[in-house]
Protein backbone atom coordinates (compact mmCIF):
# COMPACT_ATOMS: atom_id res chain seq x y z
CA UNK A 1 0.00 0.00 0.00
CA UNK A 2 1.48 3.39 -0.93
CA UNK A 3 2.21 5.86 1.86
CA UNK A 4 0.34 9.03 2.68
CA UNK A 5 1.19 12.36 1.08
CA UNK A 6 0.70 15.26 3.49
CA UNK A 7 1.19 18.89 2.49
CA UNK A 8 1.98 21.51 5.14
CA UNK A 9 0.78 24.93 4.02
CA UNK A 10 -0.37 28.27 5.43
CA UNK A 11 -0.89 31.10 2.96
CA UNK A 12 0.90 33.59 5.18
CA UNK A 13 4.66 33.36 5.54
CA UNK A 14 6.58 32.95 8.76
CA UNK A 15 3.94 31.04 10.70
CA UNK A 16 6.05 27.89 11.03
CA UNK A 17 5.46 25.63 8.00
CA UNK A 18 9.07 24.56 7.73
CA UNK A 19 9.48 24.04 11.47
CA UNK A 20 6.28 22.00 11.47
CA UNK A 21 7.44 19.90 8.51
CA UNK A 22 10.83 19.20 10.08
CA UNK A 23 9.35 18.30 13.46
CA UNK A 24 6.50 16.14 12.23
CA UNK A 25 8.91 14.34 9.89
CA UNK A 26 11.34 13.72 12.72
CA UNK A 27 8.62 12.70 15.18
CA UNK A 28 7.10 10.19 12.72
CA UNK A 29 10.55 8.77 11.95
CA UNK A 30 11.22 8.45 15.69
CA UNK A 31 8.00 6.45 15.91
CA UNK A 32 9.48 4.02 13.40
CA UNK A 33 7.85 5.21 10.17
CA UNK A 34 9.69 5.71 6.89
CA UNK A 35 9.35 9.40 6.13
CA UNK A 36 10.39 11.62 3.22
CA UNK A 37 10.20 15.36 3.73
CA UNK A 38 10.08 17.38 0.50
CA UNK A 39 10.99 21.06 0.28
CA UNK A 40 8.67 22.53 -2.35
CA UNK A 41 9.85 26.08 -1.70
CA UNK A 42 11.98 26.19 -4.83
CA UNK A 43 14.29 29.19 -4.86
CA UNK A 44 13.96 29.86 -1.11
CA UNK A 45 14.92 26.54 0.35
CA UNK A 46 15.43 26.18 4.08
CA UNK A 47 14.04 22.86 5.22
CA UNK A 48 17.60 21.52 4.77
CA UNK A 49 18.93 24.21 7.11
CA UNK A 50 16.35 23.50 9.81
CA UNK A 51 17.24 19.79 9.63
CA UNK A 52 20.95 20.56 9.62
CA UNK A 53 21.49 18.81 6.27
CA UNK A 54 22.52 21.82 4.21
CA UNK A 55 26.04 20.59 3.50
CA UNK A 56 24.95 17.27 2.11
CA UNK A 57 22.91 18.52 -0.85
CA UNK A 58 24.25 17.20 -4.14
CA UNK A 59 21.09 16.92 -6.21
CA UNK A 60 17.72 18.56 -5.66
CA UNK A 61 14.05 18.24 -6.58
CA UNK A 62 14.42 20.02 -9.92
CA UNK A 63 17.34 17.76 -10.87
CA UNK A 64 15.07 14.78 -10.31
CA UNK A 65 12.17 16.25 -12.26
CA UNK A 66 14.40 17.25 -15.15
CA UNK A 67 16.05 13.83 -15.20
CA UNK A 68 19.58 14.84 -14.15
CA UNK A 69 19.41 12.64 -11.07
CA UNK A 70 17.52 9.61 -9.88
CA UNK A 71 15.21 10.06 -6.92
CA UNK A 72 17.40 7.82 -4.73
CA UNK A 73 20.46 9.94 -5.50
CA UNK A 74 18.78 13.18 -4.48
CA UNK A 75 17.30 11.93 -1.22
CA UNK A 76 19.42 12.84 1.79
CA UNK A 77 19.33 10.59 4.82
CA UNK A 78 18.96 12.32 8.20
CA UNK A 79 21.88 12.41 10.60
CA UNK A 80 20.05 10.73 13.48
CA UNK A 81 17.15 8.86 11.98
CA UNK A 82 17.92 6.67 8.96
CA UNK A 83 14.15 6.39 8.52
CA UNK A 84 13.97 10.10 7.66
CA UNK A 85 15.00 11.42 4.23
CA UNK A 86 14.96 14.90 2.75
CA UNK A 87 14.37 15.86 -0.86
CA UNK A 88 15.76 19.41 -0.97
CA UNK A 89 14.51 22.24 -3.17
CA UNK A 90 16.63 23.83 -5.89
CA UNK A 91 18.00 27.18 -4.86
CA UNK A 92 18.97 28.50 -8.28
CA UNK A 93 15.54 28.06 -9.92
CA UNK A 94 12.06 29.32 -9.19
CA UNK A 95 8.55 27.94 -8.69
CA UNK A 96 7.87 27.75 -12.43
CA UNK A 97 10.57 25.12 -12.90
CA UNK A 98 8.00 22.54 -11.79
CA UNK A 99 4.35 21.96 -12.64
CA UNK A 100 1.57 20.28 -10.62
CA UNK A 101 1.57 17.10 -12.76
CA UNK A 102 5.29 16.59 -12.16
CA UNK A 103 4.80 17.11 -8.42
CA UNK A 104 1.96 14.59 -8.38
CA UNK A 105 4.14 12.02 -10.16
CA UNK A 106 7.01 12.70 -7.80
CA UNK A 107 4.92 12.34 -4.65
CA UNK A 108 3.36 9.14 -5.93
CA UNK A 109 6.81 7.77 -6.64
CA UNK A 110 7.94 8.67 -3.13
CA UNK A 111 4.79 7.19 -1.61
CA UNK A 112 5.82 3.81 -3.02
CA UNK A 113 8.90 3.73 -0.78
CA UNK A 114 7.83 5.77 2.25
CA UNK A 115 5.01 5.58 4.79
CA UNK A 116 4.74 9.35 4.89
CA UNK A 117 5.66 11.98 2.31
CA UNK A 118 5.52 15.41 3.92
CA UNK A 119 5.64 18.37 1.55
CA UNK A 120 6.67 21.79 2.84
CA UNK A 121 4.73 24.35 0.82
CA UNK A 122 5.96 27.86 0.09
CA UNK A 123 3.92 30.82 1.36
CA UNK A 124 1.42 32.35 -1.03
CA UNK A 125 -1.30 31.02 -3.28
CA UNK A 126 0.55 30.97 -6.59
CA UNK A 127 2.30 28.29 -8.62
CA UNK A 128 4.44 27.09 -5.71
CA UNK A 129 1.37 26.49 -3.56
CA UNK A 130 -0.45 24.74 -6.41
CA UNK A 131 2.58 22.51 -6.96
CA UNK A 132 2.74 21.68 -3.27
CA UNK A 133 -0.89 20.59 -2.91
CA UNK A 134 -1.09 18.82 -6.28
CA UNK A 135 -0.27 15.33 -5.03
CA UNK A 136 -1.59 15.60 -1.47
CA UNK A 137 -3.90 13.11 0.24
CA UNK A 138 -4.12 15.31 3.30
CA UNK A 139 -3.43 18.99 3.94
CA UNK A 140 -2.32 20.43 7.26
CA UNK A 141 -2.83 24.15 7.56
CA UNK A 142 -0.53 26.05 9.90
CA UNK A 143 -1.69 29.35 11.32
CA UNK A 144 -0.82 31.60 14.22
CA UNK A 145 -3.49 33.24 16.36
CA UNK A 146 -3.40 36.55 14.49
CA UNK A 147 -6.19 38.05 12.42
CA UNK A 148 -4.08 38.36 9.27
CA UNK A 149 -2.81 34.77 9.38
CA UNK A 150 -6.31 33.46 10.03
CA UNK A 151 -7.65 35.47 7.08
CA UNK A 152 -5.03 33.88 4.81
CA UNK A 153 -5.77 30.44 6.24
CA UNK A 154 -9.44 30.93 5.37
CA UNK A 155 -8.49 31.69 1.77
CA UNK A 156 -6.32 28.56 1.66
CA UNK A 157 -9.17 26.36 2.90
CA UNK A 158 -11.32 27.70 0.06
CA UNK A 159 -8.58 26.99 -2.50
CA UNK A 160 -7.89 23.49 -1.15
CA UNK A 161 -11.59 22.66 -1.28
CA UNK A 162 -11.85 24.08 -4.79
CA UNK A 163 -9.00 21.74 -5.80
CA UNK A 164 -11.26 18.92 -4.57
CA UNK A 165 -8.87 17.84 -1.84
CA UNK A 166 -10.09 16.90 1.64
CA UNK A 167 -10.73 19.84 3.99
CA UNK A 168 -7.44 20.85 5.65
CA UNK A 169 -6.81 20.18 9.33
CA UNK A 170 -5.54 23.02 11.43
CA UNK A 171 -2.33 23.44 13.42
CA UNK A 172 -2.47 26.55 15.59
CA UNK A 173 1.13 27.54 16.19
CA UNK A 174 2.87 29.89 18.59
CA UNK A 175 -0.03 30.39 20.92
CA UNK A 176 0.77 32.21 24.17
CA UNK A 177 -1.56 30.91 26.86
CA UNK A 178 -0.94 33.85 29.18
CA UNK A 179 -1.88 36.36 26.48
CA UNK A 180 -4.96 34.36 25.59
CA UNK A 181 -6.01 34.39 29.24
CA UNK A 182 -5.64 38.15 29.37
CA UNK A 183 -7.75 38.42 26.22
CA UNK A 184 -4.85 39.90 24.25
CA UNK A 185 -4.54 37.02 21.79
CA UNK A 186 -7.04 34.98 19.79
CA UNK A 187 -7.85 31.70 21.50
CA UNK A 188 -8.19 28.33 19.81
CA UNK A 189 -11.96 28.82 19.96
CA UNK A 190 -11.70 32.27 18.34
CA UNK A 191 -9.70 30.79 15.45
CA UNK A 192 -11.97 27.81 14.88
CA UNK A 193 -15.07 29.98 15.09
CA UNK A 194 -13.98 31.64 11.85
CA UNK A 195 -12.27 28.75 10.10
CA UNK A 196 -14.70 25.99 11.12
CA UNK A 197 -12.32 23.12 10.40
CA UNK A 198 -10.89 20.40 12.64
CA UNK A 199 -7.83 21.13 14.79
CA UNK A 200 -5.08 18.49 14.77
CA UNK A 201 -2.68 20.35 17.01
CA UNK A 202 -2.02 23.40 19.14
CA UNK A 203 1.65 24.34 19.56
CA UNK A 204 2.59 26.80 22.30
CA UNK A 205 5.14 29.53 21.69
CA UNK A 206 8.45 28.16 22.87
CA UNK A 207 11.95 29.64 22.83
CA UNK A 208 13.44 26.18 22.39
CA UNK A 209 12.12 26.23 18.79
CA UNK A 210 14.43 29.13 17.94
CA UNK A 211 17.36 27.44 19.64
CA UNK A 212 16.88 24.06 18.01
CA UNK A 213 16.18 25.59 14.59
CA UNK A 214 19.45 27.50 14.71
CA UNK A 215 21.29 24.33 15.67
CA UNK A 216 19.70 22.38 12.84
CA UNK A 217 17.96 20.00 15.19
CA UNK A 218 14.28 19.25 15.55
CA UNK A 219 12.66 20.54 18.72
CA UNK A 220 10.98 17.16 19.24
CA UNK A 221 14.35 15.92 20.58
CA UNK A 222 14.11 18.33 23.47
CA UNK A 223 12.28 16.44 26.17
CA UNK A 224 11.55 19.58 28.12
CA UNK A 225 10.22 21.64 25.23
CA UNK A 226 6.45 21.97 25.23
CA UNK A 227 6.45 22.72 21.52
CA UNK A 228 8.31 19.46 20.94
CA UNK A 229 5.70 17.61 22.98
CA UNK A 230 2.94 19.23 20.94
CA UNK A 231 4.56 18.14 17.64
CA UNK A 232 4.95 14.59 18.95
CA UNK A 233 1.27 14.55 19.78
CA UNK A 234 0.37 15.70 16.26
CA UNK A 235 2.54 12.93 14.81
CA UNK A 236 0.72 10.36 16.94
CA UNK A 237 -2.65 11.78 15.88
CA UNK A 238 -1.52 11.38 12.26
CA UNK A 239 -1.00 7.69 13.05
CA UNK A 240 -4.58 7.49 14.22
CA UNK A 241 -3.98 7.61 17.96
CA UNK A 242 -6.37 9.55 20.12
CA UNK A 243 -4.08 11.90 22.02
CA UNK A 244 -5.57 14.52 24.34
CA UNK A 245 -4.55 18.13 23.70
CA UNK A 246 -1.82 19.63 25.88
CA UNK A 247 -3.09 21.73 28.68
CA UNK A 248 -2.18 25.28 27.78
CA UNK A 249 -1.56 26.19 31.41
CA UNK A 250 2.07 27.06 31.80
CA UNK A 251 3.89 24.67 34.09
CA UNK A 252 4.14 26.19 37.55
CA UNK A 253 7.78 26.99 38.03
CA UNK A 254 7.15 28.39 41.44
CA UNK A 255 9.30 31.47 40.82
CA UNK A 256 8.18 34.81 42.15
CA UNK A 257 7.59 36.00 38.59
CA UNK A 258 5.19 33.17 37.90
CA UNK A 259 3.39 33.91 41.14
CA UNK A 260 3.22 37.56 40.28
CA UNK A 261 1.57 36.73 36.97
CA UNK A 262 -0.59 34.19 38.73
CA UNK A 263 -2.18 36.95 40.76
CA UNK A 264 -3.23 38.68 37.60
CA UNK A 265 -5.18 35.71 36.33
CA UNK A 266 -8.89 36.02 36.35
Amino acid at each position, binding site marked *: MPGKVITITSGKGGVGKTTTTANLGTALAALGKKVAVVDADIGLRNLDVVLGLENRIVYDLVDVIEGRARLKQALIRDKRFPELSLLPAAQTRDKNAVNPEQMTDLSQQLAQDFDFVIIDSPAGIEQGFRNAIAGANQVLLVTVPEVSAV*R*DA*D*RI*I*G*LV*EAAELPTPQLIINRIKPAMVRRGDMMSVADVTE*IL*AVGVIGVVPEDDSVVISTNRGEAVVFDRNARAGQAYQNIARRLLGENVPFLSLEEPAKGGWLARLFGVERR
Partner: protein
Amino acid sequence: MTLESSKKSDGVTIKGSPTGLLIRLRDEQEQFPFQLLIQDLAERLSQSDKFFQHARTSIDLGKREIDNHELEQLQGLLGLHDMELERIISGSNSTRSAARQLGVEFKLPSSQNTRPPASTERDSTGVPFDSAEALFVRRTLRSGQEVRHHGDVCLLGDVNPGAKIVAGGSIVVWGVVRGVLEAGALNSKTAQSATACALQLTPSILRIGEVVARAPEVAPRYNGPEIALVRNGAIVVEPWSPRKF
Protein backbone atom coordinates in the same frame (compact mmCIF):
# COMPACT_ATOMS: atom_id res chain seq x y z
CA MET B 1 -13.38 51.62 -40.20
CA THR B 2 -16.45 49.62 -41.21
CA LEU B 3 -14.22 47.26 -43.09
CA GLU B 4 -11.91 46.76 -40.16
CA SER B 5 -14.61 46.20 -37.58
CA SER B 6 -16.49 43.70 -39.71
CA LYS B 7 -13.26 41.82 -40.26
CA LYS B 8 -12.45 41.79 -36.56
CA SER B 9 -15.90 40.62 -35.47
CA ASP B 10 -15.86 37.35 -37.35
CA GLY B 11 -16.07 35.44 -34.11
CA VAL B 12 -19.10 37.34 -32.77
CA THR B 13 -22.60 37.24 -34.22
CA ILE B 14 -25.51 39.09 -32.68
CA LYS B 15 -29.00 38.08 -33.70
CA GLY B 16 -32.29 39.52 -32.60
CA SER B 17 -35.51 37.61 -32.18
CA PRO B 18 -38.95 38.57 -30.89
CA THR B 19 -38.07 37.14 -27.48
CA GLY B 20 -34.56 38.34 -26.94
CA LEU B 21 -31.07 38.58 -28.20
CA LEU B 22 -28.74 35.75 -29.12
CA ILE B 23 -25.02 36.36 -29.10
CA ARG B 24 -22.93 33.61 -30.58
CA LEU B 25 -19.23 33.42 -29.80
CA ARG B 26 -17.25 31.08 -32.06
CA ASP B 27 -15.53 28.39 -30.02
CA GLU B 28 -12.32 27.87 -31.99
CA GLN B 29 -9.89 28.97 -29.28
CA GLU B 30 -6.84 29.11 -31.60
CA GLN B 31 -8.51 31.36 -34.12
CA PHE B 32 -10.63 33.36 -31.66
CA PRO B 33 -9.02 33.65 -28.22
CA PHE B 34 -11.61 34.51 -25.59
CA GLN B 35 -10.13 37.91 -24.73
CA LEU B 36 -10.24 38.89 -28.40
CA LEU B 37 -13.91 37.96 -28.63
CA ILE B 38 -14.62 39.96 -25.47
CA GLN B 39 -12.96 42.99 -27.05
CA ASP B 40 -14.91 42.50 -30.27
CA LEU B 41 -18.16 42.13 -28.37
CA ALA B 42 -17.40 45.21 -26.27
CA GLU B 43 -16.80 47.18 -29.46
CA ARG B 44 -19.98 45.92 -31.11
CA LEU B 45 -22.09 46.71 -28.06
CA SER B 46 -20.72 50.20 -27.61
CA GLN B 47 -21.28 50.96 -31.30
CA SER B 48 -24.96 50.15 -30.97
CA ASP B 49 -25.03 51.61 -27.45
CA LYS B 50 -28.62 52.08 -26.30
CA PHE B 51 -30.06 49.79 -28.94
CA PHE B 52 -29.60 46.64 -26.88
CA GLN B 53 -30.58 48.22 -23.57
CA HIS B 54 -32.57 45.91 -21.29
CA ALA B 55 -32.34 43.16 -23.87
CA ARG B 56 -32.60 39.71 -22.35
CA THR B 57 -29.69 37.94 -23.83
CA SER B 58 -28.58 34.39 -24.42
CA ILE B 59 -24.97 33.66 -25.24
CA ASP B 60 -24.07 30.59 -27.25
CA LEU B 61 -20.52 29.56 -26.38
CA GLY B 62 -20.42 26.36 -28.42
CA LYS B 63 -17.92 23.94 -26.93
CA ARG B 64 -15.66 26.62 -25.50
CA GLU B 65 -14.47 26.09 -21.92
CA ILE B 66 -14.59 29.23 -19.83
CA ASP B 67 -14.14 29.67 -16.09
CA ASN B 68 -16.04 31.71 -13.50
CA HIS B 69 -13.87 34.70 -14.06
CA GLU B 70 -14.42 34.76 -17.81
CA LEU B 71 -18.13 34.25 -17.40
CA GLU B 72 -18.20 37.13 -14.93
CA GLN B 73 -16.42 39.20 -17.53
CA LEU B 74 -19.24 38.48 -19.98
CA GLN B 75 -21.84 39.26 -17.33
CA GLY B 76 -20.07 42.48 -16.48
CA LEU B 77 -19.79 43.53 -20.08
CA LEU B 78 -23.50 43.02 -20.67
CA GLY B 79 -24.27 44.76 -17.38
CA LEU B 80 -22.30 47.75 -18.59
CA HIS B 81 -24.75 48.10 -21.45
CA ASP B 82 -27.79 47.50 -19.24
CA MET B 83 -28.31 44.09 -20.73
CA GLU B 84 -29.22 41.02 -18.76
CA LEU B 85 -27.49 37.70 -19.30
CA GLU B 86 -30.44 35.37 -19.20
CA ARG B 87 -28.73 32.14 -20.04
CA ILE B 88 -25.78 30.57 -21.72
CA ILE B 89 -25.87 27.75 -24.20
CA SER B 90 -22.85 25.54 -23.83
CA GLY B 91 -21.66 22.14 -24.90
CA SER B 92 -18.90 22.18 -22.29
CA ASN B 93 -19.26 20.66 -18.86
CA SER B 94 -16.82 23.00 -17.19
CA THR B 95 -18.47 26.09 -18.68
CA ARG B 96 -21.86 24.93 -17.47
CA SER B 97 -20.40 24.35 -14.02
CA ALA B 98 -19.05 27.90 -13.99
CA ALA B 99 -22.56 29.05 -14.90
CA ARG B 100 -24.04 26.99 -12.10
CA GLN B 101 -21.64 28.53 -9.58
CA LEU B 102 -22.49 32.03 -10.70
CA GLY B 103 -26.19 31.32 -10.79
CA VAL B 104 -26.45 31.82 -14.53
CA GLU B 105 -29.04 29.67 -16.24
CA PHE B 106 -27.61 27.30 -18.83
CA LYS B 107 -28.68 24.78 -21.38
CA LEU B 108 -27.17 22.32 -23.77
CA PRO B 109 -26.98 23.25 -27.40
CA SER B 110 -29.52 21.57 -29.63
CA SER B 111 -29.44 21.98 -33.37
CA GLN B 112 -33.07 23.11 -33.68
CA ASN B 113 -33.47 25.14 -30.56
CA THR B 114 -30.72 27.66 -30.01
CA ARG B 115 -33.13 30.57 -29.98
CA PRO B 116 -33.88 32.27 -26.70
CA PRO B 117 -36.99 30.87 -25.06
CA ALA B 118 -40.28 32.72 -25.21
CA SER B 119 -40.58 33.51 -21.54
CA THR B 120 -41.85 37.03 -21.25
CA GLU B 121 -44.18 36.42 -18.35
CA ARG B 122 -44.07 39.03 -15.64
CA ASP B 123 -45.61 39.15 -12.24
CA SER B 124 -47.85 41.93 -10.93
CA THR B 125 -44.93 44.21 -10.04
CA GLY B 126 -43.52 43.99 -13.51
CA VAL B 127 -40.53 42.02 -12.38
CA PRO B 128 -39.48 39.32 -14.78
CA PHE B 129 -40.14 35.91 -13.30
CA ASP B 130 -36.60 34.71 -13.41
CA SER B 131 -35.29 37.41 -11.12
CA ALA B 132 -37.50 35.89 -8.46
CA GLU B 133 -35.56 32.67 -8.74
CA ALA B 134 -33.52 32.02 -5.64
CA LEU B 135 -30.13 30.40 -5.36
CA PHE B 136 -29.55 28.11 -2.41
CA VAL B 137 -25.93 27.72 -1.33
CA ARG B 138 -24.98 25.23 1.31
CA ARG B 139 -21.41 26.04 2.33
CA THR B 140 -19.31 28.65 4.07
CA LEU B 141 -17.94 31.34 1.79
CA ARG B 142 -14.28 31.82 2.54
CA SER B 143 -11.97 34.73 1.89
CA GLY B 144 -11.72 35.33 -1.86
CA GLN B 145 -14.90 33.42 -2.72
CA GLU B 146 -17.90 35.11 -4.22
CA VAL B 147 -21.48 34.15 -5.03
CA ARG B 148 -23.19 36.19 -7.70
CA HIS B 149 -26.80 35.61 -8.64
CA HIS B 150 -29.44 37.66 -10.40
CA GLY B 151 -32.20 36.66 -7.97
CA ASP B 152 -32.43 36.08 -4.23
CA VAL B 153 -29.64 34.22 -2.46
CA CYS B 154 -30.04 31.98 0.55
CA LEU B 155 -26.86 30.71 2.15
CA LEU B 156 -26.56 28.06 4.82
CA GLY B 157 -23.13 28.76 6.30
CA ASP B 158 -20.98 31.77 7.15
CA VAL B 159 -19.73 34.60 4.96
CA ASN B 160 -16.17 35.05 6.19
CA PRO B 161 -14.09 38.23 5.96
CA GLY B 162 -12.98 38.77 2.37
CA ALA B 163 -15.91 36.79 0.92
CA LYS B 164 -18.83 38.37 -0.93
CA ILE B 165 -22.42 37.80 -1.97
CA VAL B 166 -23.83 39.85 -4.83
CA ALA B 167 -27.55 39.32 -5.40
CA GLY B 168 -30.09 40.96 -7.64
CA GLY B 169 -32.68 40.32 -4.96
CA SER B 170 -32.51 39.79 -1.22
CA ILE B 171 -29.94 37.86 0.79
CA VAL B 172 -30.66 35.52 3.66
CA VAL B 173 -27.73 34.00 5.51
CA TRP B 174 -28.30 31.31 8.08
CA GLY B 175 -24.97 31.95 9.73
CA VAL B 176 -22.52 34.70 10.56
CA VAL B 177 -21.76 37.44 8.04
CA ARG B 178 -18.35 39.08 8.33
CA GLY B 179 -17.71 39.69 4.64
CA VAL B 180 -19.42 41.88 2.01
CA LEU B 181 -23.11 41.75 1.10
CA GLU B 182 -24.63 43.46 -1.93
CA ALA B 183 -28.38 43.04 -2.20
CA GLY B 184 -30.49 44.56 -4.96
CA ALA B 185 -27.36 44.71 -7.08
CA LEU B 186 -26.76 43.87 -10.78
CA ASN B 187 -29.12 46.62 -11.96
CA SER B 188 -32.00 44.90 -10.31
CA LYS B 189 -35.39 46.55 -10.63
CA THR B 190 -36.21 45.52 -7.10
CA ALA B 191 -33.13 47.23 -5.66
CA GLN B 192 -34.94 49.40 -3.14
CA SER B 193 -37.11 46.65 -1.73
CA ALA B 194 -34.24 44.20 -1.32
CA THR B 195 -33.23 43.15 2.19
CA ALA B 196 -30.29 41.38 3.76
CA CYS B 197 -30.56 39.32 6.88
CA ALA B 198 -28.39 36.96 8.87
CA LEU B 199 -28.20 35.23 12.20
CA GLN B 200 -25.32 37.57 12.94
CA LEU B 201 -25.26 40.50 10.57
CA THR B 202 -21.81 42.03 10.94
CA PRO B 203 -20.69 42.64 7.36
CA SER B 204 -17.65 44.76 6.58
CA ILE B 205 -19.63 46.45 3.79
CA LEU B 206 -23.37 46.24 3.23
CA ARG B 207 -24.88 47.53 0.05
CA ILE B 208 -28.55 47.58 -0.86
CA GLY B 209 -29.20 49.00 -4.30
CA GLU B 210 -27.26 52.26 -4.41
CA VAL B 211 -26.98 52.72 -0.65
CA VAL B 212 -23.79 51.63 1.07
CA ALA B 213 -23.10 51.16 4.76
CA ARG B 214 -19.81 50.35 6.43
CA ALA B 215 -19.37 48.33 9.59
CA PRO B 216 -19.27 50.46 12.74
CA GLU B 217 -15.83 50.74 14.33
CA VAL B 218 -17.15 49.52 17.65
CA ALA B 219 -18.92 46.18 17.63
CA PRO B 220 -22.62 46.63 18.50
CA ARG B 221 -23.97 44.96 21.60
CA TYR B 222 -26.87 43.17 20.01
CA ASN B 223 -25.84 40.05 18.18
CA GLY B 224 -29.04 38.22 17.46
CA PRO B 225 -30.54 37.83 13.99
CA GLU B 226 -30.92 41.13 12.17
CA ILE B 227 -32.41 42.40 8.95
CA ALA B 228 -31.18 45.35 6.91
CA LEU B 229 -33.39 47.33 4.56
CA VAL B 230 -33.52 50.72 2.92
CA ARG B 231 -35.79 53.31 4.51
CA ASN B 232 -35.80 56.95 3.37
CA GLY B 233 -32.64 56.42 1.39
CA ALA B 234 -30.63 55.02 4.29
CA ILE B 235 -29.82 51.51 5.42
CA VAL B 236 -31.62 50.56 8.61
CA VAL B 237 -30.79 47.46 10.61
CA GLU B 238 -33.37 45.93 12.93
CA PRO B 239 -33.74 42.76 14.93
CA TRP B 240 -35.08 40.11 12.61
CA SER B 241 -38.39 38.75 13.68
CA PRO B 242 -40.52 36.60 11.42
CA ARG B 243 -43.38 39.09 11.49
CA LYS B 244 -41.32 41.72 9.77
CA PHE B 245 -40.34 39.58 6.86
